[in-house]
């Protein structure tokens, strides 16, 4: 096979049978339903887009205030507000027809039955490249955290959902567990194609003047640069445990952060919080990875995965 010139490094990666033109994915919950970003970037340039998570029925979300800035981070307790599957199909899905990238649907349920039904119904739709199952939202019990914190329950849920859809299947993990590798192993044994990690860290802030919590829901999830070193460590641990691809995330603000995650073992990365601050982040990260590969004379981003020298 002819080698590609280093002037045009190959950024493509594969997750299950899903081909991504680059490893940069817009993370669920920070990218609205895609359209919110159309004035700022060409969405088709991203490796994949994951819109805000959906459930079978509409969800109202948590009481405000829902967001609070901390040092280097953002606390949020949105509470998975979403219009439900049917409205999503009618109102949000058609927009993605003209977007030339992978659409991955993030979904969650209250019960195993709901998870299975969502996966089955999403499987029957056109225009969806893959699924990301949320078993990790810290803000609502129904966000699946009850499934995602026990390896046996994780295994049971993942294998049930696996049987109801043939779409490339990613499971998004919570960092709020004792041993994230054990959960990742269950996800792999359950038959998922990839794991994505990490969701936000349970956290809180108190207003010392009112002596009340800064968030309406009291406890929220922490994201942003503050969590990056912990997320990176977790990706590295999971990389040593499972063989399925890892999608790393947690405080990635620039290409250098993304490259760290890839070196630690991530096949792809997600941009979350940074989208809110600089909508161009995804595009800038793609260009930065390209530049890094070029400068280091690496032909394919795949060669970089787990290249961390220990």
């Amino acid at each position, binding site marked *: 096979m002819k080698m590609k010139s280093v002037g045009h490094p190959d950024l493509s990666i594969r997750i299950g049978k899903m081909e991504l033109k680059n490893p940069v994915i817009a993370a669920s*919950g*920070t*990218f*609205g339903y895609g359209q*919110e*970003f159309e*004035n*700022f970037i060409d969405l088709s340039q991203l490796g994949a887009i994951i819109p*805000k998570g959906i459930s079978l029925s*509409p969800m*109202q*979300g948590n*009481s*405000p*205030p*829902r*967001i*609070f*800035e901390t*040092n*280097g*981070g*953002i606390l*949020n307790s*949105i509470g998975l*507000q979403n*219009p439900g599957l049917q409205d999503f199909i009618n109102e949000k899905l058609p927009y993605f027809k003209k977007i030339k990238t992978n659409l991955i649907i993030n979904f969650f349920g209250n019960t195993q039955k709901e998870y299975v039904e969502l996966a089955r119904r999403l499987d029957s739709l056109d225009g969806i490249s893959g699924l990301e199952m949320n078993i990790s939202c810290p803000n609502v019990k129904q966000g699946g955290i009850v499934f995602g914190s026990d390896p046996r329950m994780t295994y049971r849920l993942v294998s049930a959902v696996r049987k109801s859809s043939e779409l490339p299947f990613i499971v998004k993990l919570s960092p709020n567990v004792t041993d994230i590798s054990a959960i990742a192993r269950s996800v792999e044994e359950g038959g998922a194609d990839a794991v994505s990690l990490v969701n936000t860290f349970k956290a809180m802030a108190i207003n010392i003047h009112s002596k009340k919590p800064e968030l309406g829901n009291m406890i929220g999830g922490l994201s*942003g*640069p503050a969590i990056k070193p912990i997320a990176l460590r977790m990706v590295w641990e999971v990389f040593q445990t499972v063989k399925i691809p890892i999608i790393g995330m947690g405080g990635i*603000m620039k290409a250098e952060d993304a490259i760290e995650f890839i070196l630690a073992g991530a096949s792809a990365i997600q941009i979350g*919080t940074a*989208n*809110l*601050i*600089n*909508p*161009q982040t995804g595009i800038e990260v793609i260009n930065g990875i390209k530049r890094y590969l070029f400068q280091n004379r690496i032909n394919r981003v795949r060669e970089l995965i787990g290249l961390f020298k220990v």
Partner: protein
Amino acid sequence: MTTINVHCWLTMAIQTDGIVLKNRKIKSIYFLLEIDCPSIANETKPGQFVMLRTSDDNHPLLRRPFSIYKSYSTLHPLKRKRGHFLIFYKKVGKGTEKMSTFKEKQKVNLIGPLGNGFIVPPLPSSAASILIGGGVGMASLSALGEVLGSGKLYVFIGGKTKNDILCEDDFPKGKVFIATEDGSRGKKGTVVDLFLSEIERFDRGRPHHVYICGPEGMVHSLSRMIKSKKWIVQVSLEARMGCGFGACWGCVVKTRDTEMAYHRVCKDGPVFPLSEIVWE
């Protein structure tokens, strides 16, 4: 109460750099920032805002929202103002602290114009336009005032002290009523008390149009006070925002919408019909 469709401005927000032209203290902790940014200045409607990045190094992390106080399109008669817009800010935290150090000619990254502005319906001659605001909330009311003209206009401005009274000179003289909590300017008390003391003026006439912008407590008290009136009231809400352009759902307010109660202040507002808001 008549409902107003606040979704009729078609906004096209962009992300762009602006150039700082002036950044000066007006009084106490209030600053006025003038930015050269034709693409935003050309498109702005009263009540809209920008998200401004106060720092490149992620400290602070999030952008900060600011109402657009004045904007001059590239066709504006005042040549030296063309393509500029102004914002008022109050130095209260890390973000505005950084902003107060902005130097002339410095680049500043912006997203805007954002949100739905005020709707200005044609007024029957017997109806008045009543503007009620406090602190930096006066910025968007001042922008609105320019569009309303000087017809039957009444402006109520409140603040803790005389240093918190902003924008009074932007309105025709004799139309402005001022209240301060310490009594250092105008009537002693809150702007809500002041408005209540003048409310009989507005008992006659057609449904008046009321425009409110200020702290939540003020808006809430006013809302209780004028609930029984058949007025058309628009309120511009303040909220902690994540993105400012509708992606994160962090800045919601509870509304009477029975299908989905929480609406985004940034995208569905910041101007809402007061009757739609549910106070928690």
